[in-house]
């Protein structure tokens, strides 16, 4: 099987984030691999390993695809050291500040050229928090959308993939044929740490850095514009008390004063 994993480099969740000219300031913050994408990498590797492996002589390949600035190669390198075979990084100044419509267009174009059977994604990037890119890729490629998976089983011979989807609407069992876009929730597995051997091996793997022209995608227009962005007034400092036996009474008095009871 040819498997792809879409990963994104995001600002560290703990970092203080700021807007500059209507865009998230990505330059002056620590950047990490979107932690939800680690589950996608792990699941891709497990599926490959369960069906003949992705070593040099193995039956499968796992390719990481990422769109982002050149420094996103750090996140890509982490995926390679976990065990992915190769990587494509789409990096172009014209893609700075790209929204989900553009991102999904670029990713779909690169995916369609790679002839993949399965594409794994995380359910959400922790910066944009839109949870729409996997569905958009499926729409653009006209292939099966199997998203919010808490379990994935693959039958390479029948070219079929089945998942358990967990959302607010309950639990669904869903299947589709290759090629399919699968997004995984964090309950699905425990991502591995890169081993020393994996880290050394990743240093020898090449990252194919391409620009927008190489994807064949034209950026026609902006889809949305930020009118303004302003920090919200900080929460008024709260009251903290130490329970000396009267904590519950004070708590109830607070609720009453705020008209919450």
């Amino acid at each position: 099987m040819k498997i792809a994993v879409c990963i994104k480099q995001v600002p560290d969740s703990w970092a203080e984030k700021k807007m500059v000219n209507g865009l998230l300031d990505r330059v002056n913050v620590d950047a990490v691999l979107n932690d939800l994408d680690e589950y996608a990498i792990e699941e891709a590797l497990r599926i490959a390993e369960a069906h003949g492996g992705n070593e040099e002589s193995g039956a499968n390949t796992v390719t990481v695809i990422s769109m982002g600035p050149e420094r996103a190669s750090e996140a890509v390198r982490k995926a390679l050291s976990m065990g992915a075979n190769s990587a494509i990084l789409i990096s172009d100044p014209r893609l700075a500040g790209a929204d989900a419509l553009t991102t999904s267009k670029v990713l779909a174009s690169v995916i369609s050229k790679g002839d993949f059977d399965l594409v794994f994604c995380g359910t959400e990037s922790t910066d944009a928090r839109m949870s729409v890119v996997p569905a958009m890729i499926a729409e653009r490629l006209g292939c099966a959308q199997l998203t919010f998976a808490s379990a994935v089983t693959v039958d390479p011979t029948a070219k079929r993939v089945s998942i358990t989807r967990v959302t607010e609407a309950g639990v669904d069992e869903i299947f589709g044929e290759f090629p399919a876009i699968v997004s995984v929730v964090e309950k699905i597995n425990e991502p591995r740490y890169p081993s020393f051997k994996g880290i050394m091996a990743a240093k020898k793997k090449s990252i194919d850095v391409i620009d927008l022209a190489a994807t064949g995608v034209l950026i026609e227009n902006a889809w949305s514009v930020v009118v303004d962005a302003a920090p919200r007034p900080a929460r008024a400092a709260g009251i903290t008390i130490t329970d000396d036996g009267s904590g519950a009474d004070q708590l109830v008095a607070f609720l009453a004063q705020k008209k919450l009871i």
Partner: protein
Amino acid sequence: MSSVLILADFIGGKNTKTTAELATAAAHIGDVTAVVLAPVGQGAAYAAALVQAPISNVLVVESDSFLTHGVAAAADVLTQIIAAKNPAAVLIASHAFGKEVAGRVAVKSNSGIITDAVDVAADITATQLVFGGSTTVHSKISHGTPIITVRPNSITADLKSVSPTIETLSFDIADNAKKSTVTSSQPPVQGGRPELTEADIVVSGGRGTNGDFSAVEAFADSLGAAVGASRAATDAGWYPHSHQVGQTGKTVSPQLYVACGISGAIQHRAGMQTSKAILVINKDPEAPIFEIADFGVIGDLFAVLPKATEGVNARKS
């Protein structure tokens, strides 16, 4: 007056409170038409639920593809309705299903999309709270039909009584929208308590409960609240995953959020920090959750909660 479409929000065949919130936001912009996507034979029953919200028209489409092909089928039909009706905007609930439908509709209709809005103004400017609620952003769609998903429980619903006109339409669903097939579906289990994302008050328990949620549940019941849990509690199997609050659980924004025995990890905060008031009970004064508390009690939840439950119940009688 321009017309605005909303996708009526049904979960497990039940109309949610979110539908009225979407209609209320949409009514800022224009005349509201609610789209109802129902299994064959259920359209009339679904439409009959839409009588308490500023809705002028209901458009019913019946197809079993909504059950078997989920997101893709809903997006296919909604896009055809947009092409036929040319609305000023389309508002959809901001949850997993709603956002995915919105995403596919945006691609199909070549339109801009904004997710997780907490309000939408008359000129179709959407308000979002980003970076954990620390920043307010106003944005507008600059191309196509604005597709906006609205976060449940962020708009006070106008529950006025209406009797909308009902129109039934039928559409063919494209083969590309039938590439994934649902073989079985289990709706969420509804206990006696309010739904987490709809509740005015949420009381959550974490690792500090040590697996015993009885004090958390009793306090929740005294307040008529929903019960939530941290990932530590759901991972341990103490509470169902469907009750997890946080980045990979549900996003809630109730009038009051009560965190009991929860440390306040960034992933937990991501799902609750836009709550209007936050109350904390934790025995560790250093727990980061105190940083966002309006009222914090440093103490043992097993001592504080039962007394607080008594206190609330006493006020009611």
